[in-house]
């Protein structure tokens, strides 16, 4: 990429055209996805292991819909908390609640003490 190329790539017209060019990927904006099972596969001493894990998670009855994955090391990663993994599922859901309170999508339920220290992984 040279400088002229970069300059030509950064115009308002390009911003509009890019959405038209790549509209096939915009479907991810449309709706929530159903929670899918997490599939872990490994080979041990020549034998194939497959672990399928399905979770049904709700907060006050509202389903947690972001992509959820459990790594082969057991750590949990939730798509809407992209920069963290968690050693426990409950700790992860508590973090979802804390984030939702911070961002104003749910109320604090009368507890305004800032939640737990999920950064250090309790739960």
């Amino acid at each position, binding site marked *: 990429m040279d400088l002229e190329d*970069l300059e030509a790539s950064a115009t308002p017209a390009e911003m509009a055209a*890019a959405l038209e060019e790549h509209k096939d*990927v915009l*479907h991810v*904006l449309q709706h929530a*996805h159903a929670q899918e099972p997490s599939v872990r596969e490994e080979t041990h001493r020549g034998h194939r292991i497959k672990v399928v894990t399905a979770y049904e998670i709700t907060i006050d009855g509202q389903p947690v819909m972001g992509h959820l994955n459990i790594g082969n090391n057991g750590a949990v990663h939730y798509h809407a908390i992209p920069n963290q993994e968690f050693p426990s599922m409950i700790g992860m859901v508590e973090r979802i609640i804390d*984030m939702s309170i911070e961002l104003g999508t749910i109320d604090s339920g009368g507890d305004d003490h800032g939640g737990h220290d999920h950064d250090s992984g309790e739960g």
Partner: protein
Amino acid sequence: MARVRRNVLTEPASLEMFCRGVNLLKRDFSAGVTTTALGLAGMDLPVSAFDQFVIWHYVAMNILTPPRPAPNPNARNAAHRGSVFLPWHRFMLLLLEQHLQRVLDDDAFGLPYWDWAADGDHQPIGEQPGLGLWKATAMGGAGAPVEDGPFGFDPEHHEDGFRVVFFEDPISGVLSAPLGHRGLVRRLQGPTSTFGLPTSQQVRAVLASQTEYDVENWDARCREGLRNLLEGWIPFSADRRPELHNRVHVWIGGDMDPGTSPNDPVFYLNHCNVDRIWEAWMVKHGRKYAPDDSPDNPLGHRLNDQIISLVTRRTTTPNEMLDVTHIYTYDELPSA
């Protein structure tokens, strides 16, 4: 001549231009993009140039590599948790920087970086949220919403403030519009966090210890490699504490937490510093990348796989992003 990226805390002109440029981009609707063009039901809003970058990042996070229904226990996506993490964000920063030049009408402008490791060395860690970046004269401080600084928001005068238009709802995982008008949310370490920002010793250790860019399985499980260390998935502590890049996101919190983290302009200062550390590593170890183009390696993360953007039709590859020193340089690189 290549533009120079400078330290946001020691170069007041870079700070001032960045903040002014971001606020101009936030009000730049010249592309004519609307939520209808994005296919977002129930809304009919113009989308600013700044917010189109937010959407690009969120969409990339939702493109899993490999895609479902293939087993994907390690949840690589088109921009994170895999080898493409560093070149993908370099491409994003280049385009954001170029748009800032456009609205500032200044072809010498270089995106500033925040050397968060310098702040991470500050003791006691409880004082770190009070350091220079978070002053009203810089990026403003913590708040829900952030009220001071160039990206402050006053609910009484919301038309004038820095508004969050889209964000990822943590429960549904869906791109959402806030109920009513709201500004940025920042936690800055939070009342119960026990860790501070990453330290310069951690950065030196990464630069000194890692001779490979990335290693199999090219995901968040890798125990070695610059990419996974710098992204912040290792070392694997029992409590899964985030490190380096990840820690900066979590430490700031609020709008820096979900996949819409580019809502907070600090996102770009963080990633510019991550890019600077990558550049320092390449100066020391060579401009090399892995994985190669073998079909056994994950699509979307290989040397010549296409990186697409939602702000330009121009695509790039990791290979093309390895050497861009003809476009920009850094005033100072961290040493091992």
